[in-house]
């Protein structure tokens, strides 16, 4: 897990790490004694349609294996959230629609039927989300679950990686309906903050969204895009990036050029996986547990 050094001390103060059978759990906010009220899964960057065996020779099977593992687990998530890049980009609009349709069919195999989607730039960046909307509907929306406020933001339909003034205005209007002491959970594809702009890991107007969220005491952002775990704080707002399910990417700035990490035959599916997120309703607790693609879950 990639944690900024300066954040480590902060993180050490609020989280407990637990390692069980290859699963890694991080608990934020309430230590070991917290009682969580519900759980959901975050899956990200499945890149259906990617086909370079150097990075993943099982490109056609990885997502299906993860779905099988989730179906076989004893986990009982309330819902599943896919945080973008459902498909790998293509310039052919027909193929884009075909990939989105295939992806939709594959995830129908999940036993959990409450599945929420959002686009990544691979799904939506070349046609302003036209094909995505045909398949999945709106790219930004809100929903409530267990009295918590969930907001899905689209920072990919604009190929310039902006949220845009119109959506920011919409966000402001949504937030006006919420009390400042309410809990707000935000999903985005790209990081809202400048994680590593040299690799396009940022949102051009992300700071405007963060400014709108700042008055709320308890905000957590979950995102994808960077194909690895990452934890970062902007003020009191926590941002958690998730692993992908097709190929890992290197840690920010760790190599001269960003490129998918090559497949390691000695450790197949290394760096890939999904996570569960347990949350308390009245407490500010968050427990993240990372799962590998295929390992049997408990």
């Amino acid at each position: 897990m990639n944690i900024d050094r300066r954040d480590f001390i902060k993180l050490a103060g609020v989280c407990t790490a637990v390692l069980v059978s290859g699963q890694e759990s991080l608990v934020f906010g309430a230590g070991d004694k917290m009682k969580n009220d519900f759980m959901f899964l975050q899956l990200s960057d499945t890149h259906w349609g990617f086909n370079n065996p150097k990075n993943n020779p099982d490109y056609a099977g990885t997502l299906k294996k993860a779905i099988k593992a989730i179906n076989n687990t004893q986990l009982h998530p309330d819902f599943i959230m896919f945080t973008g890049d459902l498909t790998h980009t293509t310039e052919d609009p027909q193929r884009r629609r075909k990939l989105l349709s295939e992806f939709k069919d594959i995830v129908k195999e999940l036993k959990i039927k409450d599945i929420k989607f959002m686009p990544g730039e691979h799904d939506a960046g070349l046609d302003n989300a036209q094909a995505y909307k045909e398949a999945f509907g709106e790219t930004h929306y809100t929903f409530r679950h267990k009295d918590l406020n969930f907001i899905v933001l689209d920072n990919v339909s604009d190929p310039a990686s902006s949220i845009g003034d119109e959506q920011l205005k919409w966000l402001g209007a949504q937030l006006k309906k919420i009390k400042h002491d309410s809990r707000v959970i935000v999903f985005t594809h790209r990081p809202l903050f400048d994680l590593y702009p040299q690799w396009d890991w940022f949102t051009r107007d992300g700071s405007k969204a963060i400014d709108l969220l700042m008055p709320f005491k308890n905000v957590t952002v979950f995102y994808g895009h960077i194909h690895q775990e990452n934890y970062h704080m902007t003020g009191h707002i926590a941002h958690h990036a998730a692993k992908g399910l097709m190929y890992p990417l290197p840690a920010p700035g760790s190599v001269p050029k960003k490129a998918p990490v090559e497949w390691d035959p000695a450790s197949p599916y290394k760096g890939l996986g999904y996570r569960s997120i347990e949350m308390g309703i009245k407490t500010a607790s968050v427990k993240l547990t990372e799962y590998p693609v295929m390992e049997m879950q408990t």
Partner: protein
Amino acid sequence: MKIFKYISLIIIFSMLFVLTYHTSQLFAVEQENVIKITAKKFEYSPNVIKLKKGVPVVLELTSLDRLHGFNCPGLSIRADINPGKVTRVKFTPVNRGTFSFFCDIFCGEGHEDMNGKIIVED
């Protein structure tokens, strides 16, 4: 007669000064360090640019196909590159180093490979 000589000399020197000044300005324009960069899916050409620290430069950016971006966070440069239009970016590098740049307008499957670097030397 002497006074006319002096006046004539002053006029000639003034004219020479004005001429020299304008010539030097013209010379300075001619000396503008212009680097032409073309962008197309999914590359910049050239993609390695060497500059001298403290020497002003103009990047002339053109796209051969579609809208691309030019973003060099280390030098605080960002521009859209529209096809059919020359985008000029003037700046003076003040620090030595290697600064990566990339396309920040999602442009297709090879978008993530569309990058380059500016090397600033003494």
